């Protein structure tokens, strides 16, 4: 059986929401981008960032498929997976 790449099934984007210990928002943003890069994502953005004492609450987004792209999940094999009936 071929191994499925889960990212091929992601409709549009993947968000990572976390808290990063840092000195300020700027540093938090840098660390956030670094984190996404280290995870292997190329097209990333900070959707939301908020600094509190000692760190940032941050939501990072990796775009997997943008509108107008060729979506791998649309491929008929991947498009809809019927719910498993127990």
């Amino acid at each position, binding site marked *: 059986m071929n191994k499925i790449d889960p990212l091929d099934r992601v409709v549009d984007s993947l968000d990572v929401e976390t808290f990063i210990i840092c000195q300020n928002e700027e540093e938090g943003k840098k660390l956030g981008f670094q984190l996404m890069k280290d995870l292997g994502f190329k097209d990333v953005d900070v959707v939301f960032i908020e600094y509190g004492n000692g760190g940032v609450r941050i939501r990072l987004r990796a775009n997997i498929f943008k509108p107008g792209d*060729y979506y791998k999940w649309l491929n008929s094999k991947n498009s809809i997976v019927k719910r498993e009936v127990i």
Partner: protein
Amino acid sequence: MQIVPKKVLLVPLDPVHDVALKIINRRLKERGHKTLLLPPDISIEEIVDQASKVKPDIIMISRTLGYGVAEVLSKLIDLLEVVGIRDRAKIVIGGKAIKPELAAELGFDAGFDEKTSYEETIAFVEGRKYEVEEEKFIKKKKDLTSGYSYKFNHQKIDKMLDEITEETLDWCKDKTSSGINRAYLREKMIELKEQNNIPLQNRNKRLTSLQSEYLKNCDDLIIRFYQEEVLPKKVRELTTEEKESLEDYIKKSKEIARTKKIQHTTDKPLIFFQYGTGCPIMDIAHIKIGEAWGADGVLHFDPSWGARTEGFLEGYLSHEEDGSIITEQNLGKIKESLNSSTLWTVRAHRGLNTPETVVLAGKSGADLTKINIVYGSLNAGTDPSRLTVDGVEAIKLAAKYNLAFDEPTNEELGGVPAYKTFAGMLIVAKLGLKLGAKPILKPLFCYSPDAMITGRMDDNYIDYNAAKIYSLHKIVDAPIWPGEPIGFMTHTEDRIQSSMTTALHAALATSLGVDAITIASSDEAYSRGSISVTSRIDTLRAVQETFRFLGKAKIKPTYKAKEWSNELVSQIEKVLEDVLRKGSFVAALYDGILGSREDGAYSGRVGRNTVFSK
């Protein structure tokens, strides 16, 4: 089906968690079953003793799975077997992490976990086949205008609107535009394609002739597309493989489609969201996911350049930026994907293609469209004369295709006070009624620049929004659908805050008894990228939870809401008096009576000097 009463022994084997069994106990009693609920945390010997005395048909045991529990349960089954209960009673176990396989392994007849509904448990006791709630629920398409008389409660305003609209219709009667020409050419082309009795050659010849006439009424961008196959920037045609895969996606998604009701104990407001990702495939994904999470309707948003361009493109087209291109094919595919209960709006209101959009919407099977001459003229860049002529024709077409139309008052976001936007909306509504259409009033639930300047929302977001609804009720008996989206300008990039503000505005909407609302996604304030499908689910879930919380209870506005609603009615009256004094609706638009430069409204220039005599 007649219920055969059963004798049920309910055993909370868990030391503390017996709530579920208490609920089941109540429900079983209500349905005429004889039950005995034992106290929690008793020994298995006592349970067996009670079971021997009661001789139940069913024993229901609740127990959260944990260390050593399986042994206790096995022992219980063994003891029940010894005293002869096992053979005559069904024994079931319910609790967290209890799976049917595990229950069977331990010797039980069934196992229920925390996801099992009470209905399923009751069905088991009664020996009925359980129908999953969502499968039982059949959503039906609703008519938002049903039950409204459109009778004006405010006689003076009614009379003024009558005079203004008579003048407007009279002004329009000998005027036309290339937009109107295209609408009727488009109608002819579609109808020709629908006629199968004409020989293909003749049909193609007539289509070519109609298309050539159509292109005489188009901008260069459109002409180049048809004549030289040049697509606008950032637009591409879907490939054959994409189209085939999309067919498959639609087919499969319809096969497994389930509907859900977001409203709890009320029937309204219906929940709409706007799509317009740029790509019809992604739009369809958003629609199908939105439907799965309970959306009642969707609105098609086209790119802003579509409103500034004379004519429409053709084919299955994808666009890299916001707004999905209106073509007969794109709309057709989107319609094909919709659940039968989903209401579908194609917005037409603001640009040079307004009447033609209504034709395409009508021919594609849309339920609703969107027309507001005033907003389109003052905040969407279209010349007031052109949009009045086109808008009136678009309303006639909406009546012809039985498309109710909503009237967004988004000029309020530019800074125009609500009372001016309402005066404009009421004029267009009256035009609609005179032309046989069904208008839907669309006040904004928003933190508008005017509300900020006047401080009306310094304390809360409730009173002024409520005042808007009260004022419209005082004027006319018509459907009201706040938008667009509710809570405009209160959203931030914080997903929780964004979902929360949408949900709270939805709570206000249900409290005020409005017919529908348009909700944003939790990505509403995120402007650097496209809206994600999960952000749609965020707000649909948040609204559902709010409706569950509120039920038939209501948010109570303060006395200010009534005060401000009276003020709004007087202000609307005054604006309409000014329009009448001006003697012309179109002149009133140019002169800022319905929204001035000081307010933040600018009469549009697109399509200026393009109105001509019939």
